[in-house]
């Protein structure tokens, strides 16, 4: 019994001693940072060294880098504890926080910075936009250059970047300094339309050119005109409407494809429309001649942007009167032959309408198109059973009234 007590006693003393020395030692662990450099150059070796009197505690270095976090194991030699930053972190710039960690405790911490490597070939990324702007000097395209040091690190702040641009005969070179990774410049359009070419240069590295299209500005007011083969309302020929060369405020011809609407108002205030798109600034619209005398008031618009002058054109009647005849017991009405302005037959498809009237009441309106200048109407006994009818015949804007015609209701 006594023996066991002794053994337990001795064991506990041994344990106490061991624990005590451990505690004592832990208190005396000192790690002093030897590395005084605060800046390292990207791509070079980065080593952090501590002087330590510790033989047992092996701390690790926890690293927080812009692009990751990791834990480093040091090498211990002659009282110096050295940590080497992995290459993947050593080549990227930015501040690095380190924490010296032993048994779940941070025993020292600090930061150092990795700065861009000047000796590496500079590379430049360019971002140009908007890539299409309008002429006139109010709009601009923005050139943003992001120079990097060859390890894909943004260069030091205040690095000069040449931003060069060419437009027509002008070549401009500006020097902008980088700030927040970038050097940038707004390049304004001038009065003429065209192409702006932009490129940049930084530390003897130059980029390819990038272009921004300067489109003509929006159209200003324009004038319109017309041309036609003759001024007769023959329902066949075409009147061509065309604009002057439409230009913007700065004398640039508007972009091809600008839509022009021609708005036509006739004698009875009915509105007709025709459209054209510009080619080389000129838009044309086409308009069929009316089949009756009329006058058209015409004005063109680029909707919401510009308008033209307005003018009126006249269409003359091609005939003063026409012939018609009844045959087949008045059952067949033949209109024509209709003759045009030089006695030629009218084109096929001229509309002829006939109003059938009985005792001053409109019974029916019949309509046919001409063929070879002639139209025939058949007044069928099956439908028209009364004894008397009267007719009003209209074509080419002229109306002629027949006398009352008699019919035999029993006719088969």
């Amino acid at each position, binding site marked *: 019994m006594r023996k066991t007590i002794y053994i337990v006693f001795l064991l506990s003393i041994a344990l106490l001693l061991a624990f005590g020395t451990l505690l004592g030692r832990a208190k005396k662990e000192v790690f002093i940072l030897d590395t005084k450099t605060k800046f390292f150059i990207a791509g070079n070796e980065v080593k952090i060294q501590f002087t330590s009197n510790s033989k047992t505690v092996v701390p*690790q270095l*926890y690293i*927080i*880098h*812009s*692009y*990751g*976090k*990791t*834990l480093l194991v040091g090498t211990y030699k002659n009282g110096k504890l050295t940590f080497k930053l*992995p290459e*993947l972190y050593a080549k*990227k*710039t*930015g*501040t*690095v*926080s380190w*924490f010296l*960690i032993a048994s*779940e*405790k*941070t025993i020292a911490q600090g*930061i150092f*910075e990795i700065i861009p490597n000047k000796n590496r070939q500079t590379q430049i990324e360019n*971002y140009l*936009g*908007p*890539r299409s702007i309008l002429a006139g000097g109010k709009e*601009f*395209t*923005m050139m*943003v250059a*992001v120079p990097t040091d060859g390890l*894909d*690190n*943004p260069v030091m702040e205040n690095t000069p970047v040449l931003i060069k641009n060419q437009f027509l005969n002008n070549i401009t070179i500006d020097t902008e300094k980088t*700030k*927040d*990774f*970038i050097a*940038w410049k*707004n390049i304004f359009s001038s009065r003429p339309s065209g192409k702006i070419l932009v490129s940049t240069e930084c530390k003897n590295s130059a980029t390819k050119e990038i272009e921004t299209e300067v489109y003509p500005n929006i159209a200003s007011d324009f004038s319109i005109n017309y041309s036609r083969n003759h001024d007769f309302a023959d329902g066949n020929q075409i009147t061509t409407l065309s604009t002057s060369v439409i230009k913007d405020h700065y004398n640039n011809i508007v972009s091809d494809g600008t839509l022009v609407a021609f708005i036509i108002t006739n004698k009875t205030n009915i509105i007709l429309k025709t459209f054209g798109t510009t080619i080389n600034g000129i838009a044309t619209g086409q308009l069929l001649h009316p089949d009756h005398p009329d006058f058209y008031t015409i004005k063109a618009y680029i909707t919401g942007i510009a308008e033209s002058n307005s003018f009126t054109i006249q269409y003359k009647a091609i005939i003063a009167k026409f012939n018609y005849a009844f045959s087949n017991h008045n059952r067949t009405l033949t209109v024509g032959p209709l003759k045009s302005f030089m006695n030629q037959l009218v084109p096929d498809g001229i509309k002829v309408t006939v109003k059938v009237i009985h005792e001053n009441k409109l019974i029916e309106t019949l309509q046919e198109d001409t063929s070879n200048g002639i139209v025939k109407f058949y007044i069928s006994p099956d439908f028209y059973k009364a004894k008397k009818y009267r007719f009003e015949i209209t074509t080419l804007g002229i109306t002629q009234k027949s006398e009352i015609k008699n019919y035999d209701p029993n006719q088969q």
Partner: protein
Amino acid sequence: MTLINNRNITRAVLILSFILINILLLLGISKVLDFLNSGADRISMLHLEKETINTYLPKVVWESIDNPGRVMEPNTLKTIEKDYLFSWYVKNKSLQDNSKAGIADYYTQNTRQNLYNTIKNNTKNEITIESTTLKHNPKLDFYSADGQLVVFTDKNVVEFQKVYQKKKLIAAVQDTATYKVMMLLEDGFWRVRHLQKIEKTTFPLDTVKSNSVFKIKGDKITKYNIDFTIKGINYYPKNSAWDTFGNSFNTDTISKDFDIIKNAKLNTIRIFIQYDDFGKADIKQEKLDKLKKILDLAESKRLFVIVTLFDFYSDYTLENWTLTHRHAEKIVSTFRDHKAILAWDLKNEPNLDFENRDKSNVLNWLEHMITVVKESAPNHLVTIGWSNSAEAIHLADKVDFVSYHFYNAIEDLVKETKNLAVITTKPIVIEEFGVPSYKGIWNLRGSNEKEQAQYHKKMQALFKKNNLAFMSWTLYDFPHVPDQVAGKWPWQKKRQKRFGFIDVNGKKKPSYLYINH
């Protein structure tokens, strides 16, 4: 025997096996077709499915969006913020799992290579890092005219991380750093092009003058600078225990209960907010409205309220920290000026999670939560409801007053409180105490109603003598107790149902006489 000759059997076997083979063949073909038809949802092409809600919600405050380039549109700013936070989220995730998932979506081609290298290096050394950022204070530096490029400085990002090697915790580290970020808009994503950690900047300190009703003076809580002793009770409505804000929420019931409490000359109640019930990070307005009604009612009855947050919450992983932060922030800041609130109790008995949820995790979570709640409501006090006096020493220097729950033998009360007072100079509140009036087959050594009354009588005498702040458990006996509270077994539940001063029929139990002193 002649009926079943060999020939017929052979025939039947042949036919049956033919049918079987056909069925198997059809099944096989359909499986193959199924497989060929499966794939990504078409909607995923639109990137609509990615929302930061319930994923990653650190606090983001844009300092300024003035910049020499283009005027920033509010919508774009939101998209940039969302994608930027996702860039952090996928970075954190990749450090944790050493996987490349999602990185290509939020980092440009050159930049993602750096992260891949990190993953490779950490995989090789078996390093995993759980991390989260807590706060971002971005300031816009530049937004290009074509809206495709943006540069901003994210000032003083607070990062918290736990480093593991070979699955063993090496350390938990907090760091604050500023990041300069350049992002490009590529096929609908804002992607990080350059990311550079730079030295943190110094912020001017907030000089908001506190005009709180309750303050701490030495080891005393004061109300309008006059000493205030909490005499309170833990409160659930009788029929909605652990579900105050549920479907049976009724202001008439609560109002009557408050009258009972007020008539007992108590001055404080403690109520509980369940994390899931309030909608996690996406707080339900309906719940806030109910909470407001309770607080307004308390104010009208001149009762003060200790609101306990994060009830039934027990996931303390770094991944969800930001979500819990937004949860607390939303609730606390909504009521930051409410006069009825005495204190926010961050968590009921968090020490019970020490074993299963890692003690350091729980403590770190609580410590950061204190900051979040104090920032959101500088005029209210903060405490943590520890389940015993021994654990109450944790974070004692961070809370405004120390709370612990006392379910030990009566004679230990004064001793335990005094021991605690040696360690901390902060006021001490016995936030829960009580005994169930239940003696039955499940609990032969329990107290009956008379013994319960005796217990409270003795306790009140001690409170009076030593001028201690107390909050009893609880006003009512409960007809129903959810399984999550004490357990699902009857011997666990029965006890929990009978702690009240008033029984399930609304009759005052003998202990009611000693609800106060």
